[in-house]
């Protein structure tokens, strides 16, 4: 082979390698299946809080503990997750007000079997898109996007945290997104004595939340309400008794749920 031919062979090989590598890489991008190699995280019971809890101001009285409550194992759950990606993202002419939204949500839920009898309304919040100037630190414009309506399930008259319905409503109350986790069957697995709300608060101040937080509770955060209920632990299918300290933090107007294990 002449030196000239050898050079051309080398160049051709480089070119062919590029094509093969390119095709392989593009092939990798075209693949859109699930990642079967994803490592499943270790089992946790309730998620841990990521922060300290020593800066809480109590603005609510302590409710009476229920004494002894049944423990339950969840047997079946109705799960619905639907997203209207296009409509959810667009700016609307108007969105339902917080007062209008619950009635509209109930009507729209008829297409999903209606609002269950054991549901109670958490709240309705109109949500906006905001154009914000980072130099002046001011809102330039605000556009209506959707109104969120949230319901929680009740069992034995107690709220079940992590079981409920979260809806996003459009201009006329039509459902844009729906997330429903509704316990449809459960059976008694035992019973437990419940600690007092005062003892639960002591645990909270010691940082003994049922789940790990990824941040610090700001100084001056206010516990606006305290509720006893069950926490639906999807990993174990248990309904776990909890005290929930609903806390307003920072510039927030909506409370965050701080869960504390209520079993004695």
């Amino acid at each position, binding site marked *: 082979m002449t030196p000239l031919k050898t050079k051309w062979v080398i160049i051709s090989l480089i070119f062919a390698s590029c094509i093969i590598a390119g095709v392989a890489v593009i092939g990798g991008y075209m693949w859109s299946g699930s990642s079967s190699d994803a490592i499943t995280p270790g089992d946790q019971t309730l998620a*841990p809080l990521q922060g300290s809890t020593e800066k809480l101001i109590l603005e609510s009285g302590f409710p009476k503990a229920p004494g002894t409550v049944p423990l339950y194992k969840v047997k079946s759950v109705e799960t619905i997750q639907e997203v209207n990606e296009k409509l959810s993202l667009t700016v609307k002419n108007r969105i339902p007000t917080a007062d209008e939204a619950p009635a509209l949500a109930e009507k729209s839920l008829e297409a999903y079997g209606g609002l269950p009898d054991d549901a109670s309304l958490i709240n309705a919040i109109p*949500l906006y898109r905001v154009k*914000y100037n980072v*130099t002046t630190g001011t809102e330039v414009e605000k556009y209506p996007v959707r109104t969120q309506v949230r319901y929680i399930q009740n069992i034995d008259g107690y709220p079940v945290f992590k079981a*409920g319905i979260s809806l996003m409503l459009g201009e006329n109350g039509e459902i844009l997104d729906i997330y429903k986790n509704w316990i449809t069957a459960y059976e008694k697995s035992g019973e437990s004595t419940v600690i007092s709300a005062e003892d639960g608060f002591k645990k909270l101040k010691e940082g003994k939340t049922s789940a790990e*937080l990824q*941040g610090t509770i700001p100084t001056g955060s206010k516990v606006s309400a305290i509720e006893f209920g069950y926490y639906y632990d999807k990993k174990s299918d248990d309904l776990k008794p909890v005290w929930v300290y609903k806390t307003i933090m*920072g510039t927030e107007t*909506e409370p965050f749920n701080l869960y504390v294990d209520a079993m004695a």
Partner: protein
Amino acid sequence: MKSHKRISVLLCLAILCVFMFPVSAYQFSMTNVENYDSQTDLYPDGTSSHAYVYNWLTGQGWSQAFYHVDTSVDDTDFATSGGGLNNADFHYHYGHGDWISSVGYLDYSNYPTSSLVRTEVYKKWGTSLISANKWVVLDSCWALLDLQWGGALKHSHGILGFASLKYSDPTLTNTFLDNCITYDYSLYTSWRSATQSVLFEDGTQVRVVFDTEDQLQNDHLPGHGTVASSEILDDDTIYYDYWYT
């Protein structure tokens, strides 16, 4: 004359390679602070989150630019002096966050001695139109309650994060990337759907911050839908949406 021909051919090949290889250029990076000197440890949640990021994105042909953990995470990862996350199209940060006097912090492992504040990264993400970085996830509490984090977006497109406390749960990472890749949802919808599903009714405020409204509505992971163009002239404005879990 012959050598000119050879140079021309080699140049053509080089140009061809440039066009063949951009797809393979997609890179991700991750910072994971899960062990703290004076805060609650989050191990192994950050490690699990990284496993999800790594497996989903390498499965799509992406490569990992860097993965720094605990004490090896510092300002340079966040492009305070160039490089860092600017070398990757997608960056995922996991760890504690804090909010003091209206300033959102990302906590390093020896916090409060060291942390990252938004002033350190002002206009530093996507420093040029050819910078790789497009998106940053801040999987920690509080940072995006401080909207000045949006000032980090020079030519980068968006930040996905939280404006309140949140509970740690690595299945959020998995669900988010599953939404992006399996369902071809936009990054915004993927984040909204994942947070609604995993942090269901905790009362977490979730936010997305994008440089332009077009990016907010249309950005997808490459190969899974459109990616809006980068803002050519930085107008100092951002768009943000929020919702509650």
